[in-house]
């Protein structure tokens, strides 16, 4: 498409004319704001680790503090890269991601202390190394992808990669099953990875590109019914394919959360592209129907529903695979109260997997409702920045991609935190940036990098101020 590549060269032509004025008015204002916020975020991260040590050990141990400092160094490296290659990128995304990541590491470290793990055994050290790797990936993405429109060319490649990554854990010999869900791949005994986390980025790119190309047939025609325009039967193909895909994730990978994540992502992007509520209704009823059938026929889905609805029943609580974990998490949250027990002074290790799926309950216990709301506010701001990029965007692909990527973070938060707090049935997903897990960190940092890139290319330089 010649017209797609045209705008970038055009803005370059216009740059010499506005260059002088831009330099006069904007001396990297956004980047300086980002630097300021980053310094605060790194300070809070350091404070969290120090408070954990004071609370749990009673003294300050410098080794992990040094490790955290090296991570801060990498974040500042990313900031400097942004100064050169994405001057107009959003100034809030990087500090928020840094802070969430750091709080996560502090919490994981706190649980390591409780379990008396250290060195490479300890999840905190591994998480720190993974964070370093993830930030390095983010820097690479910023450096390689100079304009998000490049991704538009690889729409179908991205779709293919996404589906392959999604199905990879089903390959015999490569896939690994961890606590029932077959969503991992591993080589030998080490380096397990959850390819589905990366798949969500590839699928967001694919959905955005596909919907920009085909939305006319999905939005223009159809019969009116109940005040809404419903699509024609033959246009239902894409939604049925994605529905079948997510249902197969439920059946073969036994992972409810991932399925909900992908389907929700597609539905939101479809709604965004067509502006028709009927798609949402259609999609939701399809998914609810599927989930209802699954809950009747599949044991593990049925168990999740029982644990959710009847959590405090002693029989369910004591049953194997019962609601023990869920209720322990709730007890932890209750113990935390309004301001928490303080870093290092609660007992979050009593809940199974307190550092990954249940990190929100652990945090709720130690920093309380006030801290938990602060974390939720950070997610809110992160997602709102993504939506803002979609709103300010000029090209439809960028709009869809920006909103899709940030919505996937929002939905993932809702699924995990909603599960832990017993709003919806519990399904295992990682809390973005916080929870222990390398693949999730890498995926979310790449999302942050893509949002930064989008906000830079999308941010409209005023051509003229009257």
């Amino acid at each position, binding site marked *: 498409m010649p*017209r797609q590549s*045209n*705008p970038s060269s*055009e*803005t370059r*032509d*216009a740059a010499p*004319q506005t260059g*002088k*004025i831009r330099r006069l008015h904007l001396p990297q204002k956004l980047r300086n*704001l980002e630097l300021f*916020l980053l310094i*605060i*975020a790194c*300070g*809070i991260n350091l*404070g*969290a680790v120090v*408070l954990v040590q*004071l*609370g749990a050990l*009673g*003294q300050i141990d410098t080794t992990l503090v040094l490790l955290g400092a090296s991570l801060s160094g990498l974040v500042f490296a990313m900031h400097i890269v942004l100064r050169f290659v994405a001057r107009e990128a959003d*100034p*809030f995304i990087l*500090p*928020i991601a840094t*802070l969430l990541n750091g709080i996560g590491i502090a919490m994981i470290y706190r649980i390591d202390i409780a379990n008396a793990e250290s060195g490479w055994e300890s999840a905190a050290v591994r998480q720190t190394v993974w964070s370093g790797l993830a930030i390095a990936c983010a820097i690479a993405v910023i450096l390689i992808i100079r304009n998000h429109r490049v991704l538009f060319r690889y729409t179908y490649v991205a779709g293919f990669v996404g589906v392959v990554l999604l199905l990879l854990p089903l390959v015999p010999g490569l896939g690994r099953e961890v606590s029932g869900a077959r969503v991992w791949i591993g080589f030998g005994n080490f380096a397990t990875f959850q390819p589905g986390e990366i798949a969500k980025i590839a699928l967001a790119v694919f959905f955005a590109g596909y919907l920009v190309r085909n939305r006319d047939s999905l939005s223009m025609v159809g019969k009116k019914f109940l005040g809404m325009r419903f699509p024609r039967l033959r246009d239902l193909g894409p939604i049925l394919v994605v529905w079948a895909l997510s249902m197969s994730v439920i059946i073969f990978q036994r992972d409810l959360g991932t399925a909900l994540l992908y389907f929700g992502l597609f539905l939101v992007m479809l709604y965004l592209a067509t502006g028709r509520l009927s798609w949402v209704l259609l999609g939701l009823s399809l998914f609810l129907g599927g989930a209802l059938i699954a809950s009747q026929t599949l044991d593990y889905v049925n168990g999740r529903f029982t644990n959710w609805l009847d959590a405090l029943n002693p029989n369910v609580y004591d049953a194997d695979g019962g609601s023990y974990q869920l209720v322990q998490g709730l007890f932890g949250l209750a113990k935390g109260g309004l*301001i*928490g027990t*303080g*870093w290092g*002074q609660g007992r979050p290790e009593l809940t199974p997997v307190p550092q990954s799926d249940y990190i929100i309950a652990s945090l709720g216990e130690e*920093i*309380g409702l*006030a*801290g938990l709301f*602060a974390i939720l*506010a*950070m997610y809110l*701001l992160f997602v709102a920045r993504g939506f*803002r990029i979609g709103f*300010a965007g*000029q*090209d439809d692909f960028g709009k869809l991609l920006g909103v899709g990527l940030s919505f996937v973070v929002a939905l993932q938060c809702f699924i995990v935190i909603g599960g832990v707090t017993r709003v919806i049935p519990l399904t295992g997903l990682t809390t973005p940036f916080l929870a222990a897990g390398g693949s999730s960190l890498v995926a979310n940092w790449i999302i942050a990098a893509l949002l930064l890139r989008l906000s830079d290319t999308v*941010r*409209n*330089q*005023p*051509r*003229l*101020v*009257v």
Partner: protein
Amino acid sequence: MNPSELTLLVLRLGFLLVLWLFIFGIVYALRSDLFGQRVRKLATPAPAPAAAGAPFATPPPAPVPAGAFAQAPSASASAPTEQFSRPQSAPPVSSGPEKATTQTATRLVITSGPKAGTEFPLGSEPITIGRSSDSSLVIRDDYTSTHHARLMLWHDDWMVQDLDSTNGTFLDGKRLAVPTSVPLNTTVKIGATSFELRR
């Protein structure tokens, strides 16, 4: 040297406080997104728009007399518009107003308002107009909405769409209700500013 209960309590509260200060810091930095740009009062019209717009002002095309740009700001709001549009629209008048397409329209010229006489090149990207600083054409006066209108391309034709603005967008004096294609050299009026698309 175990820290005392009180120290830990103070540190705990301090941590939460700093965490919330961080969040309020971000929200404070975002305030223009939430509440819109500050309005500039129209009471003091910029006295020297020609100087301010100097980098943009290019030599006018042949049919327009060179002195016309200098007169523009001092004249009343609507007068210079006609002054500009007449000489240019005269030749194609036999075939009705010509549509502005990516081929025919190359620049957007401000014809009235504080920055009358300035212009910038049109590309093939849509142009947003409004008070918010992320608009392509930022118009900061009392009559402009944050996201007021936009110029977009429909099969290479320039269309203007009003984005539910409070005070409306006027194409050749008529308030817009639906996206309408913009002919060349026809005035689009937003607030106290009007502009034209030109060859």
